[in-house]
């Protein structure tokens, strides 16, 4: 009996030792897509992001150096506590190696803390706020698709330079809205514009008429919408209703996704300027990838978050293959070293900086008139390509501890 138990113990030890020598723990790569599957952001991220991650795995061949790759997913309901407890469970009990997507800043920051502690990779795509590459930065954390700094830089710069000097803000009263407003104010003032005022509206909010009237009476030329999703849609819809745009004032949507434009319809959204990290109808490469995605999503077209998720997961897989291990730090080093290029056409001139920011070209777009649109989801004219280095916060300004000064 004792002998059997001893043999068992020896065999078990040998097995564990063998596993430790393997390149990839548990001989499997697991990538978790943690996103909003039921709430406000479930169209711009959600199941479309899970599909994008799966497409990346399929395009990569399903295996990294012969080790199979699996995608798991969960709904964080835009709540930080749920996000961090799923992340912990995934890392500790289920052998997840990296977490991707992560819409909603609060959820992304919560997962960032856990990933940093465990030395695991996070690939943030949907969340917008800049702290992710400033005081919340991590050696194994990446911010892929866009951020409030780049949005403000793109849209506000363009608007101020075309004469929109005075601004009034409608700001969603939570961390993201405040962050976006602050970033935009910085750009407006730096370009010689002035801020006439701001109103913080409850989140979420459906009736904006009162706030729009305040913005109207401020006499500002531009009404900046520092909010997102249904709030932005309602504000734009009602601005048209109250004759704000006809009265000579213009709206600047500071975070507008293609799903929002689809919801508004071109009749209402036409002429609006916005900044995006991706547009499906930009060139042959983006069209080809987006149509593959679209075929599995009832004819919808991908948002920048969807394409960004694909791009980040694809780059992670390449780094895994090059590093020949799933050790977070070593994979992160490879991610910084390897060139970024994938089939979605997402990361044009992409590079990853020390603070974890993936810097790539952004696009200033204008929403088409209904008469200009050639088909479903043909919504944008790309007015200007903003080179990544001009769009994103300069590395020298980053408060990230990993940036050598």
């Amino acid at each position, binding site marked *: 009996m004792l002998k059997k138990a001893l043999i068992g113990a020896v065999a078990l030890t040998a097995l564990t030792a063998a596993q430790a020598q393997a390149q990839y723990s548990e001989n499997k790569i697991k990538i978790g897509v943690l996103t909003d599957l039921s709430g406000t952001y*479930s*169209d711009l991220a959600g199941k479309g992001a899970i599909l994008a991650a799966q497409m990346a795995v399929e395009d990569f061949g399903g295996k990294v150096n012969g080790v199979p790759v699996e995608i798991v997913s969960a709904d964080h309901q835009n709540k930080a506590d749920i996000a961090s407890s799923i992340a912990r469970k995934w890392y500790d009990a289920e052998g997840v190696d990296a977490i991707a997507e992560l819409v909603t800043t609060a959820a992304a920051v919560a997962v960032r803390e856990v990933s940093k502690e465990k030395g695991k990779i996070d690939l943030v795509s949907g969340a917008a706020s800049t702290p992710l590459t400033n005081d919340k930065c991590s050696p194994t954390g990446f911010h892929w698709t866009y951020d409030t700094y780049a949005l403000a830089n793109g849209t506000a710069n363009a608007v101020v330079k075309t004469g929109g000097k005075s601004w009034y803000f409608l700001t969603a009263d939570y961390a993201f809205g405040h962050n976006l407003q602050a970033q935009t104010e910085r750009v407006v003032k730096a370009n010689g514009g002035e801020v006439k005022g701001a109103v913080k509206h409850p989140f*979420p909010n*459906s009736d904006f008429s*009162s706030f729009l009237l305040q913005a109207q009476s401020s006499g500002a030329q531009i009404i900046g919408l520092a909010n997102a999703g*249904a709030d932005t849609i309602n504000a734009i819809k009602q601005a048209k209703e109250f*004759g704000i745009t006809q009265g000579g004032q213009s709206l600047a949507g500071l975070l507008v996704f293609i*799903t929002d434009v689809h919801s508004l319809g071109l009749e209402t959204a036409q002429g609006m300027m916005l900044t995006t990290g991706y547009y499906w109808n930009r060139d042959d490469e983006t069209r080809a990838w987006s149509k593959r995605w679209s075929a599995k999503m009832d004819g919808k077209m991908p948002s920048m978050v969807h394409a960004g998720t694909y791009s980040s997961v694809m780059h992670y897989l390449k780094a895994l293959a090059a590093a020949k291990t799933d050790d977070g730090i070593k994979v992160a080093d490879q991610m910084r070293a390897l060139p970024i290029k994938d089939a979605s056409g997402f990361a044009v001139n992409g590079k990853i900086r020390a603070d974890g920011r993936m810097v790539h070209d952004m696009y200033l777009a204008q929403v088409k008139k209904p008469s200009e649109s050639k088909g479903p989801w043909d919504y944008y004219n790309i007015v200007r390509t903003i080179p990544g280095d001009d769009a994103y916060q300069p590395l020298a300004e980053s408060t990230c501890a990993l940036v050598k000064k």
Partner: protein
Amino acid sequence: MMTLFGIPTAALFGQLLLGLINGAFYAMLSLGLALIFGLLNIINFSHGAQYMMGAFVAWLGLTYLGANYWVALALAPVIVAAFGIVLERTMLSRLYKLDHLYGLLLTFGLALIIEGFFRQLYGISGMPYAVPKELAGGWNLGFMYLPIYRAWVVFASLVLCIGTWLLIEKTKLGAYLRAATENPALVQAFGINVPVMITLTYGFGVALAAFAGVLAAPIYSVNPLMGSNLIIVVFAVVVIGGMGSIMGSIVTGFMLGILEGLTKVVYPEAAGTVIFMVMVIVLLIKPAGLFGKGA
């Protein structure tokens, strides 16, 4: 410029008018809730989902059948009410003898299922619905620009609210209804079919919600959660007005719309909570609500 409470009077008038418009929605929705609670003793938590269904039926009709706004305004309430009647007959009617809580839980669950269903089919971002041509544009009132459509909303809502109040309080049918809530057995003994009356009342309450939904479609984003954002506020309105009081819910709806409108100017950050603060105060001082009878 003349000022009142530190706000230019012109701006104040504008905000009062906007408050009145929002109040119209509160009034219509809380009216349906009060009606259902007053006569069926059911706290209808699926009211928000039924409001959303009204808006969606309008959108579906326009998109797939080419049915315009006016057709939707007439038909959507009927269609959604028919759906409500099926719910009432198959599920709600089993709960009348139990505590309020059971009805609340059932309707809450139904609301989640209905919203989930629409979310699965149409996503979360919502659908565009244009203001009907006849009501497009607006009037410049000097102190503000009033979209014609918003004026129409207030008008339609007032007609609907007053009509309903007259129906319940001043007609024979209304008298039967009120009697049936007090003592169903006795009313039944007089040869009146009480269960059918109750079913139709539920259907009517649901129709009010759907009607409000169609009115809302051109103003707000038509999305599966549009009702759940509103329903909590509307419940607060009903509690403040007095559960089951029809006039109470109408008057309170408009009043609180105005109060909320003013808060949006004076201290916008509190606009989302001011109604609930009033609710707390009213519950502490007059638990039956401003227009409620008894405790």
